[in-house]
Every structure is written in structure tokens, then in C-alpha cells.
């Protein structure tokens, strides 16, 4: 087994320790869903469609967004990375033949396997409750296209979190930056409102930003809000951003290391 495979297994074990956290998170997922149901249900009470979408389509969109976060969302990777730097644990990675990005990505994948399992449980519980409101897409081309979209989303989410975590090379406290970024990502990622409800001019600008591909894009493909042409164009832009962010992560890592002082024996 490769060293990254071992890192994945170690990550799996350490994340199982925090299974209660994921359990609590999945319980509160229902509360998020309840807020969405109540708010949008009230908005749809006087309108059969909003922005051309029915209540069921909008609710399905949010269910998919929430479930995707369990599988491909970066939760607290930035905090873990910043703690590695602040506590000096990062020093061991400078001596070993393992790249820190690869190691962290392996641990991230392991964490998502654990949280994803809770996501499935939450979804299985939610489906009977919201069965009448869930619109399952039948276009297999879109479903197939959503797979690379989800993988690229995971890389984008992780790389952004990784870069923010590395800010600990320069700053003592990075939580402010992280939460600042989270507000932007939440809004421009489509977690607050489906981005296609924004004015078309705004939507056409946002679709060229990386945040667009952090949640909205795979959810829009999976729920059939957008067609195959849009998905193909989006995949190209998404691949571009994934590449840029991986390069940025490497650049910040190298710059940070020059700034880093390893103390102790």
C-alpha cells in the first residue's frame, strides 16, 4: 500500500474518533432542511413557480447541496492545517518523503468517507419524510457528468481550505479569514439561494468564479437545473479552477516554508 493509502487509513481511524461530531452534524442537517422547507414553502405558497422552478425542484436542490457537503465539503481542514503549523507538527513532514498536500488530501478523503456515511444515513431518514417533494433526475448523461464535477468540487474545496490553513505561516490566528471566506463561499456557492434565481447578469459573472463550482455546479447538474451543454462548459471552467488552485496551494506552501522556523530537537 502506498504512503498516501496509509495516510488515508490513519485518517479513517482518527475521524472515526469524531463520529459523534458527524452524527451531531447530520442531526442538525435536518434543522437546516427544516429552515429551507419552511422559508421556501412560505415563499411558494403564493407562487406555483419561482424563477421557473417548482417548490419540489428547489427543495431537491437544497437536499442535494446538503448531502454533497457531507461527501465533498471541506469542514475544518483549514483549522487542522493551521494547528499543524502553529504546534510545529508540520516539521515532521519536512523530513519525511511525503508531500503535505497529498497527505492532507488523503486525510480529507478519509474524513469524507466517514461524514459521507452519516450523510447517507441522514438522507435515508429524510427521503421518506420529503418523498413527495424530491424530484429525481432521469438524464443519465447529466448524472454521469456530475461525477467528475463532484471530484473537481472536492479538489477546489480542499485546495481553498488548504491555502487558508497555510496562512498560519504568516498569521497567528486564521479563523477570521476562514469565516470571512466561508461567508463568500456560502453565498456565491449557492448554499443560501440557488444561483439561477439571481439576476442573469450577476449569474453570468459568478459562473466564472471558483465559488460557483464549490456547491452550486454539481448540484445544478445532478438536479437537472442545467442542461448538458452548460455542464460541459462548466466542467472546463471547473477543471481550470481546480488546476489554478492546486498550483496556488503549492505556491503558498513553498512561500510559507521560506517563512517558517522549525524549533526544537
Amino acid at each position, binding site marked *: 500500500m502506498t504512503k498516501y493509502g496509509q495516510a488515508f487509513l490513519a485518517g479513517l481511524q482518527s475521524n472515526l474518533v469524531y463520529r459523534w*461530531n458527524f452524527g*451531531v*452534524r447530520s442531526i442538525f442537517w435536518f*434543522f437546516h432542511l427544516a429552515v429551507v*422547507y419552511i422559508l421556501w414553502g412560505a415563499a411558494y405558497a*403564493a407562487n406555483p413557480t*419561482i424563477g421557473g422552478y417548482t417548490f419540489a425542484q428547489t427543495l431537491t436542490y437544497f437536499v442535494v447541496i446538503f448531502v454533497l457537503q457531507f461527501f465533498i465539503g471541506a469542514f475544518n481542514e483549514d483549522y487542522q492545517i493551521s494547528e499543524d503549523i502553529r504546534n510545529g507538527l508540520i516539521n515532521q513532514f519536512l523530513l519525511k518523503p511525503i508531500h503535505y498536500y497529498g497527505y492532507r488530501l488523503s486525510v480529507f478523503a478519509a474524513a469524507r468517507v466517514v461524514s459521507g456515511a452519516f450523510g447517507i444515513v441522514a438522507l435515508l431518514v429524510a427521503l421518506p419524510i420529503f418523498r413527495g417533494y424530491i424530484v429525481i433526475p432521469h438524464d443519465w448523461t447529466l448524472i454521469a457528468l456530475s461525477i467528475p464535477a463532484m471530484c473537481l468540487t472536492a479538489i477546489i474545496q480542499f485546495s481553498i481550505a488548504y491555502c487558508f490553513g497555510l496562512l498560519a505561516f504568516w498569521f497567528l490566528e486564521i479563523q*477570521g479569514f476562514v469565516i470571512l471566506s466561508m*461567508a463568500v463561499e456560502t453565498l456565491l456557492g449557492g448554499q443560501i439561494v440557488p444561483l439561477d434565481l439571481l439576476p442573469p447578469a450577476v449569474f453570468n459573472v459568478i459562473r466564472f468564479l471558483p465559488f460557483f463550482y464549490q456547491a452550486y455546479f454539481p448540484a445544478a447538474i445532478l438536479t437537472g437545473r442545467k442542461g448538458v451543454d452548460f455542464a460541459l462548459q462548466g466542467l472546463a471552467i471547473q477543471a481550470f479552477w481546480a488546476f489554478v488552485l492546486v498550483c496556488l496551494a503549492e505556491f503558498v506552501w513553498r512561500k510559507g516554508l521560506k517563512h517558517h522556523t522549525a524549533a526544537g530537537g
Partner: protein
Amino acid sequence: MFRGDLFIWASVELLWISVNVIMVGVIYSHTPTVAGWSMYQMLLLVGTSMLIQRFLMGFFWSGIFEMGRNVRTGLFDFILAQPGDPLFMASTRKLELDGLLNSLVAMGLVAYSARKLGLHPGLLDLGYYGFMVACGVMIHFSFLVMAVSLAFWITSAQGVEGSYFTLMEFSRLPKQAFSGLASVIFVWILPVVVVSNAPANEILHGFNRDWMLGLCAATIVWFALAVLVFRSGLKRYTSASS
């Protein structure tokens, strides 16, 4: 607090307020009313909810957040060694200026919405509003203390404080949007809707005795529960010292 930190955290809070305002704007760009509430009525409600949350952030958040962490690491000994009630000492250790600064933004949102609605509340109405907001802060405080007190039982429960933010999302919704089981849970059992709707109604429709009594009763019950849970947890605390 360092000037840079203050600027960043003030920006964080301002951005989150903006996110909520944008959400309301987007929804109302597609519909004139939600549960019978117009856009500016909804913004007044959101502003009130934010105001309560910013006061909580300003006065108590850091202390309560650190309390959970300190219980896990054993640093809570430091609080217990101080000559005062542990809950008071732990929760009032720090004042966060950024939260208090942004309470001005939330107040601005409430004032702007009231102006757009053509409302001119009197001094007494504003006094009742202030009292109700204070009750709301105490209810938020109580809920947060209970959530963080879980650390006495579940040492690996990092991040349960986040549950507070999830539940408080309900406080940005009008009571009329709730029906059936959701109304029973979120309006009557958990006071998450009452905390913001009661003061917002004070400005929108004037004094309502039922809202006031309901809010006072909820404040007393939830604060008592928080103290009870905290003290029960404290009995389980094992000091880090030898």
C-alpha cells in the same frame, strides 16, 4: 484585541449580515410576500435577529466558546479558582468589540426597514423593544451554555457550539410561516422563533401583552435550565491538576 483582528472580525460579521440581507432580497425579487410579510417587514425581523445575535457575540460568545474548549483540555481549573460564580466568570471573560460594532449595523437595518415601512415607534415602544431584545439575548445565551455544557459529558464533541447557529436560523423566519409540527417544536417548545418575532412585532404592530409574557416566561425557564445543566455538568468535571 489587535486592530487587524478587529477589522477582520468586524468584516466577517458585516458580511454575514449582508448574506442574509441578499438572501431576503433574492427571494423577494420573485415574490411580493412571504407568509404575509413584506420585504421590509422581513428585513426588520432579520435585523432584530441579527441584533440579538451580535449582542450575544459581543458580550458572551468568546467566553462560552472557550469554556467548551477549556473543559476538554482541563484549563477550566483556572475559572474554578476564581472568586465568583463559575458560569458568570466563564461567560463574561471577554468583550468582543467586533460583535458590538456590528450591532450598530443590525440596528441600522432595523431603523432603515422601519423608516421604509413608515413606522414611528414611540419611546415606550423602543423601551419594550430593548427589553425584549435583552430577553432574546438571555435565551440565546442559555441555549449556547447548554450546548457547550455537553463538553462535560462528551469530551470529543468539538463543534457542537455550531448547533446554536443552526437553531438560530429559525429566528429569521416569521411565526406565520410555521404550521403543524414545526409550529409546535420551533414556536412553542424551542423559543427560537419567539426571540426575534416578539420584539419585531413590537415595532411593527405595537405592544402585545401575550408576546411580552410569553417571552419573559421563556427567558426564565431557559435560563433556569441552562444553570441546571451547567451545574450538573460541573459535578462531572475532572480537574487537569494533580
